[in-house]
């Protein structure tokens, strides 16, 4: 009889990882991707001990730089819950312009660089205009502009070739004592440390979480989306300039592989495809992962064709372990 008055057993509370437990850190996308990058790097060094030196690290950052920059632009757009597939063609166009129009004098080089990044930002802003002010799907708008910008690149430079001034190439290709890539990555990480604290970035995240709520909270959501696309075009143009410097020539098709790899870098770097969250520190980690995977495939002597499968596998694991639970279920039993 006394059973009736027995106190109910307290419900079992699933322990949540607290900030002070080691497992907490593994739930942070940025930390997780860097753990993966360092792990892969160690694996690579075990495979080829001869490349344990400062020079190979310099080379690594040099190769990761264009990917990290193009993914930074993609990150801005994805944080606003959009997607930009035209970044590859912007890269192609900027290598084409750099390889055909850049003169050898210092003023000429700087002027051409400025024109190229402005063209990139303007093309991105066109995407942003159609998406933000005309309500079109970003996916299909950027597919269309991808084709158009590819056409422009082919008109500027019909086939791979041309050349960039030696001064420009030698600055980009500096690898000792510290590579241009390492310096550029550190500078952009420092910039990121400032950007992530600004109100502008907070507005971007707000728009990505819910454009309508951001609108009612007084955020100019259309202008914010447009700026995100403009930044994406700017970043892609910068990445294209680096590629032009590394290859010392232009190529109207060079950007194609960067469309999907840039998106993959951003996602592996912990940027949520549902919008509203992303970190450039994670994106740099993602670029490192993809670059080291490239080296590992080479060191293992695997068929280079297997690389897409490995990248796809990492991507699948990254998505499966980060995207779950955030947006999957809205009402009980109703998937989003």
């Amino acid at each position: 009889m006394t059973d009736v008055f027995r106190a109910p057993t307290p419900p079992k509370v699933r322990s949540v990882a607290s900030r002070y437990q080691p497992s907490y850190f593994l739930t942070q996308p940025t930390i997780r991707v860097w753990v993966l990058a360092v792990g892969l790097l160690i694996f690579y060094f075990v495979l080829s001990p001869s490349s344990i030196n400062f020079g190979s690290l310099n080379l690594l950052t040099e190769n990761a730089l264009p990917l990290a920059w193009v993914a930074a632009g993609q990150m801005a757009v994805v944080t606003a819950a959009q997607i930009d597939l035209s970044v590859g063609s912007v890269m192609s166009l900027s290598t084409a312009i750099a390889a055909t129009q850049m003169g050898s004098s210092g003023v000429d080089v700087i002027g051409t660089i400025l024109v190229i990044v402005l063209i990139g930002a303007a093309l991105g802003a066109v995407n942003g205009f159609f998406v933000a002010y005309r309500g079109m799907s970003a996916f299909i708008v950027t597919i269309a502009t991808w084709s158009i910008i590819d056409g422009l690149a082919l008109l500027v430079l019909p086939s791979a070739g041309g050349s960039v001034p030696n001064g420009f190439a030698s600055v980009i290709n500096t690898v000792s004592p510290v590579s241009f890539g390492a310096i550029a990555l550190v500078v952009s990480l420092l910039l990121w440390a400032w950007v992530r604290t600004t109100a502008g970035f907070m507005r971007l995240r707000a728009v990505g979480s819910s454009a309508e709520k951001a609108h009612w909270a007084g955020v100019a959501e259309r202008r914010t989306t447009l700026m995100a696309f403009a930044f994406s075009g700017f970043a892609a143009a910068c990445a294209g300039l680096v590629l032009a410097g590394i290859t010392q020539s232009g190529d109207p098709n060079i950007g194609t592989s960067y469309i999907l790899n840039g998106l993959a870098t951003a996602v592996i770097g912990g940027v949520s495809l549902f919008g509203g969250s992303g970190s450039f520190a994670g994106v740099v980690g993602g670029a490192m992962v993809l670059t080291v995977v490239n080296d590992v495939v080479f060191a293992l002597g695997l068929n280079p064709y297997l690389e897409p499968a490995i990248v796809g596998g990492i991507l699948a694991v990254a998505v499966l372990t980060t995207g779950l639970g955030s947006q999957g279920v809205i009402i009980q039993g109703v998937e989003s």
Partner: protein
Amino acid sequence: MTQFRDVLGTGVDMLRSRRFPSALAIAGTAGLFLAALFLFPSFDSYSDISELTLFGAFVGFVAAGETLVILIGGVDLSAPWVMTTGGILVAGWATAQHVPTVVAILGALGVAAVIGAVNGIIVAWLGLSPVIVTLATNGLVEGGLLAYERGMSPLNVPEPITHWVYTKVWGLSSAGILWIVASIILAVLLRRSTPGFRHLATGGNRIAAVLSGVPTRAITVGAYCGCSVLCALAGILYSGFVQIPYYGMGDPFLFEAVAGAVIGGLAFTGGEGSFAGTLVGVLFIVTLNQFMSALNVSAGVVDLIYGGSILFALAVSGPGSPRWTSRRRPVRRTATPEASTLP
């Protein structure tokens, strides 16, 4: 005056309606074809219609698959390598291992169905973005195919397939007829059958569909399955056309297929579009291709015209901004309420 305004308004509404892109595509196709007849003496209507339907079939099956997926608000970026897989598996099995051709075709379609089911299950049950899921499967399928074939160069396609693809019936290619008939059947099923209606409901408003008892997850898996099977079929037909399938042969088709579907009036938001529209859109793309190859313009101009025609089709049919952002332009379509604003 009011009457004039009404007429004008109706005209503008018609231009802006979803039906317009199909009409535009039909007019564009007919115009390009007639222009080609007059401009190029080498163009002869009979053999060229046959050629158009043949090329249309390759793009068209991929486009029909994409339509299936985009109608439920998804997208399938794994189409290129699923297509390649279809062609290469059939060639490998039938020519090197002497499997009967029909069995090889069914086997390849089965493999494609499994790939599509994996896509669909991940998208439906884990709620992940279809862009990234199908992007990842595209890479995995590429690697898997190369590992399975050990990177060997592919073999000849079995003779019956090539023979069948090059057969002409009533002046149309047989592959083209298969594509047109399949599109009509799909179009009728979509508008006149329960599964078709559930398909549209899932794409239109998923939460309303779930609450009305539509098995949206099963529909999603079915759509991705169907898309992959249609892509593999396109790959088998195309390999019959080129006779020796090659790795990466599917790569250009995704872009053309999506462009055709969008010009045919398919909305990326889901729930709006038709297989008939996609058919017409693909015919437009293929005619445009032929026209430009006859004009002998450079690849850059081709790309410009491609992108321009997609943007134009979007601009005349665009849904406009959702109600809460609209300040100057009148509201035409209400945005689907954000899921997170529901109680």
